[in-house]
């Protein structure tokens, strides 16, 4: 197509696309997100296409492969439009039935509908499921609706109209003013006011300025940025172009992890399409504004999510942070003023420009406006991606949207903000979530990773897990982070192994405080948070490990023993057959025994026993 050279051309294209879309045309929207793909999405897509072919419906029915819907737990997901019938756990075997019964005869396949665990009712539409109805989808509104590889899909949903407005109807200062009034705070986790950062960068002296999209999402259990990149890359690109115009940037970078191949693919296509359409590159929309975005792939270092390390990596140097000041807005990429924002911050910009700052600030709390996107993982029923208003309580988030804890187990704590964050115990479940309330509880908003734990999670073990992660990911430049995290990990491992000594807890706490205070960059300064917050809320668990040599959650292998209850054991021999080290002995129909010397505490016997006869102490 010819590059769009004016707002009118964009408007005309938008209208043409709108006209060409028949809302009544049958459509199958198949989730192509990473979760659904790994659950067999590509095979499903193939069989659906084959079935349509066989039924002669190839022409009539449109198949759209969308990005992540969010409800990864229920994947692969298929939505039948225009009726908006939401099918879950769809397998290739279901393809025939979907085509022949639902599409041809209008019969709803009951067995593929979502069952509300609360009342066992089947639910027809996504919007009626508690998982979706409790959400406020703004940034993620088009996730699962559009094909991320087609710019026309984005334009059909008023895409790039905010850009057109920003270029032709607003002065750069007005854009910054609008963003400031929206009170958008950095979605990467630190919560710095985005408008203020833009203002500082715009005012910084220099002809060359850069903007960067930080898509180096690396927290264990976090996949918000990935899903957005995969589902709606144009919203991020549009936000960046608006930002570049407001700040006066001459170049842009998207720094994305190479471990996100799907996101890289959607971004590459989206950038190419935007350039072809005249929405990126030279003379954007005929306005005379020139700006292009380069994709830069990370090489696997978590620390490159730290802004100064990220810039070093783009410059071609090892991804190591440097001291601030100078801040990137003063002296960033190659010494030029640079503005770095997270994926979700950039994706919020078109919404703010299109709908106004007041609309954005309608939801949220006093100091944290808008919505927050969380990836909920761990011991939770509805694993997936949610967008909720700031100020929602943890209870609403975990029990209403998240569907509570599986197996009727008791909620223990939620680790929020990944390895830089902290845990929040059950007694704070009714705290409204925003940047400031989480900080006061010893956690951080972080980029939105949310790991739910239940009574079977050992908090010392959890702290050890995150410490191992940061220890491996520390760049090693500064002494406290390099060796402090190693000593902390050694201490935690010793405690989990049952070798904890009196004084370990105090020394751990002291070391954690020093690493937090004295480290060079954000990684080291937040690395002790999981230890400090578990010590704050679950100190008794540490003490049980060290003084009583007992793991209250029965997790730490050095502190537990498995025993077979002779009253319950039927002598079925299933455990003995499954034990990988041959530690279980006993005659058929006689109670069995576990040899504690041979037993490796893998817990397999407990899993396979049908009578709950294996007990852990």
């Amino acid at each position, binding site marked *: 197509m010819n590059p769009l050279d004016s707002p009118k051309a964009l408007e005309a294209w938008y209208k043409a696309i709108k006209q060409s879309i028949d809302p009544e045309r049958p459509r199958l929207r198949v989730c192509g997100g990473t979760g659904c793909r790994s659950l067999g999405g590509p095979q499903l897509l193939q069989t659906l296409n084959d079935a349509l072919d066989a039924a002669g419906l190839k022409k009539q029915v449109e198949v759209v492969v969308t990005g992540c819907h969010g409800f990864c737990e229920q994947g692969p997901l298929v939505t039948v439009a225009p009726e908006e019938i939401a099918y879950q756990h769809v397998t290739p075997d279901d393809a025939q039935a979907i085509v022949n019964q639902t599409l041809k005869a209008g019969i709803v396949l009951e067995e593929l509908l979502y069952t509300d665990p609360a009342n066992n009712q089947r639910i027809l539409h996504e919007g009626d499921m508690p998982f979706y109805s409790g959400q406020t989808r703004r940034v993620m509104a088009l996730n699962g609706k559009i094909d991320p590889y087609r710019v026309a899909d984005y334009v059909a949903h008023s895409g790039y109209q905010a850009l057109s407005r920003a270029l032709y109807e607003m002065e750069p200062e007005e854009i910054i003013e609008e963003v400031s009034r929206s009170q958008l705070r950095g979605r990467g986790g630190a919560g710095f006011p985005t408008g203020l950062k833009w203002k500082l960068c715009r005012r910084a002296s220099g002809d060359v300025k850069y903007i960067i999209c930080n898509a180096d999402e690396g927290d264990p259990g976090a996949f918000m940025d990935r899903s957005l990149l995969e589902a709606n890359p144009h919203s991020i690109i549009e936000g960046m172009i608006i930002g570049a115009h407001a700040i006066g940037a001459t170049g842009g970078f998207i720094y994305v992890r190479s471990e996100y191949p799907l996101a890289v693919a959607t971004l590459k296509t989206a950038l190419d399409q935007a350039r072809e359409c005249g929405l990126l590159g030279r003379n954007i929309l005929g306005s005379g504004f020139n700006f292009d975005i380069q994709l830069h792939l990370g090489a696997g*270092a978590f*620390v490159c999510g730290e802004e100064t390390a990220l810039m070093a990596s783009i410059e071609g140097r*090892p991804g190591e942070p*440097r*001291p601030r*000041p100078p801040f990137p807005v003063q002296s960033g990429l190659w010494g030029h003023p640079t503005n770095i924002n997270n994926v979700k911050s950039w994706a919020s910009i078109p919404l703010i420009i299109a709908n106004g700052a007041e609309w954005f600030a309608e939801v949220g709390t006093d100091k944290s406006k808008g919505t927050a996107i969380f990836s909920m993982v761990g011991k939770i029923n509805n694993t997936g991606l949610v967008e909720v208003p700031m100020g929602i309580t943890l209870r609403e988030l975990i029990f209403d949207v998240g569907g509570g804890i599986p197996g009727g187990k008791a909620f223990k704590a939620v680790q929020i903000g990944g390895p830089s964050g902290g845990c929040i115990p059950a007694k704070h479940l009714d705290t409204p979530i925003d940047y400031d309330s989480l900080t006061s509880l010893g956690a951080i908003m972080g980029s939105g990773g949310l790991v739910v734990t239940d009574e079977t999670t050992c908090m010392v073990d959890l702290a050890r897990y995150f410490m191992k992660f940061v*220890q*491996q*990911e*520390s*760049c*090693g*430049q*500064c*002494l*406290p982070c*390099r*060796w*402090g*995290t*190693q*000593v902390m990990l*050694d201490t935690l491992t010793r405690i989990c192994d049952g070798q904890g000594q009196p004084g370990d807890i105090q*020394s751990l706490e*002291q*070391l954690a*405080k*020093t690493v937090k*205070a*004295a*480290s*060079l960059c954000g990684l080291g300064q937040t690395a002790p948070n999981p230890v400090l917050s578990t010590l704050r809320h679950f100190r008794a668990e540490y003490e049980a490990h060290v003084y009583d040599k007992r793991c209250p959650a029965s997790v730490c292998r050095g502190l537990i023993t498995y025993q077979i209850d002779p009253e319950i054991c039927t002598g079925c021999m299933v455990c003995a057959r499954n034990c990988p080290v041959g530690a279980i002995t006993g005659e058929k129909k006689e109670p069995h025994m576990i040899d504690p010397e041979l037993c490796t505490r893998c817990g397999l016997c407990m899993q396979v026993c049908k009578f709950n006869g294996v007990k852990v102490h």
Partner: protein
Amino acid sequence: MITLTIDDHQIETQPGRTLLEAARERGIWIPTLCHHEALEPYGGCRLCVVELETPHGPRLVASCTYPCEEAAVVRTDTEMVRQSRQVAAELLLARAGHIPFIQELAASLGVHSTPFSLPVDDCILCARCVRACRGIVGVAAISMVARGAAREVASPFHISSADCIECATCVLVCPTGAITLHDITDRSRTLHTWPTEYARRACRLCEYHAETWLEVGR
């Protein structure tokens, strides 16, 4: 000129100076390890941390990298500073407690033993050698490799570096003696701890051998 306060002293200094430079001009003692007058500031050892007053409360900054700011209020000897330096010294002792220089440095901070245990090594990863090779000599024959606790100084791919010009500046700036020169034959020598081996060459201008000025330098 900018004015700031360090330990209740009003100090006037040039813009662009670091807190460490300003404090030392005034005769205020701040311990350092990775710092070297001839090298770019690094901020790695964190021994030189000082407390800076901010609107969000006091926080620690490395005085060797932090620039002097107008009206800044800095303290070099608070509980938080002492605590932090003490832990850093204890970690150093765990790594290289057998090195007399490290023992003396720790003792100057009142630390004589360590509760921690780490794999022992002569090298404390202060990166003085790497910065000297890159910044003074301009060849970058050695660099930091790997991350975190696995970090080490090495020549590329752990093989003899073709870029090394046998100047031995790294040997001079190393505070712990972790880098040494060994003669293999009278025609060749090797630079430890990374395996760089080279033939002896005379200086083209003065015909001095490297070992000769090395003697002078030490």
